[in-house]
């Protein structure tokens, strides 16, 4: 197969397949972006490319509390959950990758089970538990389940990264006179940073994406995230025809994802593949 790749015909064939993949992946994204730039008059013309361009939809959403609050909630909740999950995940992953202790297999097993856990099964009990604890419709009420479901991802990805770090370097640094702290700061931390960063991106994407918990465990603008706010733009909201506004809001929350993918494509791929498939 490798030999055939070099011929011109094969190049064209692969090139064509590439185009198919790119078009298939991007069309829905371009379509919603296109809708968000259409004027009210041309919104329903069915054209893939807007005939008239406008930024009105973006002005509308940023002038309403409904969207701005949701955006603040989304960013805050996702950042806090990501930070906590990555810190706890780093600790556990270090232990899994480097230490020998009974219960390690159990921890890995539990994380695997939680990665496969049907989240909807938690919606009813969490709804009731959070109501009685006063966590319903608050930031912590969403942050807690996000941390829980992000942890397996963090532990798997990070322990795979940590296993690849040449830990002998730490010993070498200490022989050269570095203290434990210096060896960690100057040698190990820089080596571990890319793995931790990659994990943080994956966890953030997970939290940013969630809809089920966000719609079940919130009830007001106090803690509603953007995906939920989007689904409430319809119907009785103040927008006459919410389509343009929904699309503009959808584009806004897609921007961070696009940036991550553009700048960290290689890391995301390596993080996902090392974390999810082992052995």
């Amino acid at each position: 197969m490798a030999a055939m790749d070099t011929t011109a015909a094969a190049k064209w064939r692969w090139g064509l397949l590439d185009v198919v993949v790119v078009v298939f992946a991007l069309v829905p994204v371009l379509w919603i972006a296109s809708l968000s730039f259409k004027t009210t008059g041309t919104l329903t013309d069915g054209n893939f490319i807007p005939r008239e361009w406008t930024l009105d939809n973006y002005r509308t959403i940023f002038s309403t509390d409904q969207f701005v609050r949701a955006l603040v909630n989304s960013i805050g909740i996702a950042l806090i959950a990501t930070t906590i999950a990555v810190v706890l995940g780093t600790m556990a992953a270090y232990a899994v990758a480097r230490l020998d202790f009974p219960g390690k297999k159990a921890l890995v097993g539990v994380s695997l089970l939680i990665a496969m856990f049907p989240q909807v099964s938690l919606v009813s009990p969490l709804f009731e538990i959070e109501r009685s604890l006063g966590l319903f419709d608050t930031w912590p009420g969403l942050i807690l389940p996000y941390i829980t479901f992000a942890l397996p991802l963090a532990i798997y990805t990070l322990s795979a990264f940590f296993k690849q770090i040449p830990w002998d370097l730490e010993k070498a640094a200490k022989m050269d006179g570095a203290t434990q702290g210096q060896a960690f700061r100057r040698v190990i931390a820089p080596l571990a940073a890319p793995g931790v960063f990659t994990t943080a991106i994956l966890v953030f994407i997970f939290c940013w994406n969630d809809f089920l918990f966000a719609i079940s465990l919130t009830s007001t603008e106090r803690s509603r995230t953007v995906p939920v706010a989007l689904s409430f733009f319809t119907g009785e909201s103040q927008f006459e025809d919410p389509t343009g506004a929904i699309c503009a809001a959808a584009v806004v929350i897609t921007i961070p994802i696009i940036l991550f993918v553009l700048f960290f494509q290689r890391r995301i791929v390596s993080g996902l593949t090392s974390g999810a498939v082992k052995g």
Partner: protein
Amino acid sequence: MSTDSTTTVDRTEAAGPKGRVPAPRRGRGRVPLSEGKRAERKLGWLLCAPAALVMLAVTAYPILYSVWLSLQRFDLKFPDQREFVGLSNYVTVLSNGYWWTAFGVTMLITVVTVAVELVLGMGLAIVMHRTIIGRGLVRTSALIPYGIVTVVAAFSWRYAWTPGTGYLATLFGEGAPLTERASALAIIMLAEIWKTTPFMALLLMAGLALVPEDLLKAASMDGASAWQRFTKVMLPVMKPAILVALLFRTLDAFRVFDNIFVLTAGANQTSSVSMLAYNNLIRGLNLGIGSTMSVLIFIAVAIIAFVFVKLFGTAAPGSTDEGGRR
């Protein structure tokens, strides 16, 4: 196992903070634990405890609590009628037509999307693995469906199929595809497949990277066709990766919720079990019935996982994890 070989090298730092040199590793059978060994255990537990506690507190306790709730009549609209009713909620749900319709829809979506994704994902994995021109571009584009918020993608599909607004609406003649059961289900599956094929492909690509190039070349020299190389060389090597990808995607597909919520809101019998449980809880405020469905979904997922683990045998992810990367 290889755990020994990977950890013995660096055992000194493992017990590092305590500054002790651990006893030699071999022959630890009955010998009392050395100081360093004990420190290592303690550190390991300390480091894992917070993660383990959070995970168990937010999953194990609620699922047990929902078993308890499922045995009660508990409707938040009539809170004073709360009482223990045994298994009668289960009888109610399991003898209900809506539940079985939703269960059938969920199974259909799971089976069809996972099967299609396996084929498409394998194709995409090979393209991403083999292509020379624009490799970065292909990988970047393929990651966008993976990363994008499901609700956003679902709205894009919804407007694409809405008559008058969408570029796809008139593809199959007049009518509104999202308001008819068969076409609505097909669109839900399309949206699911679009969103999750890249994830499947990435998992398969990791398996693809394990296929030795020499083996493919040797097979090629011996006159094996491309198809034979694929089925006789690549597939056997990739089997563990394929099973892991299938397991993860099957359980994930079974949870389908976001796409249905946005595309049809469960109208025209397109509800999945997740959708039905959500509706009973949030719209119906019926905690008893909602919890019963939660428990039933949990059991269904456990059965699926069990069947897969039986198929895995020793290739289950948990069991190979100890062996390090390769």
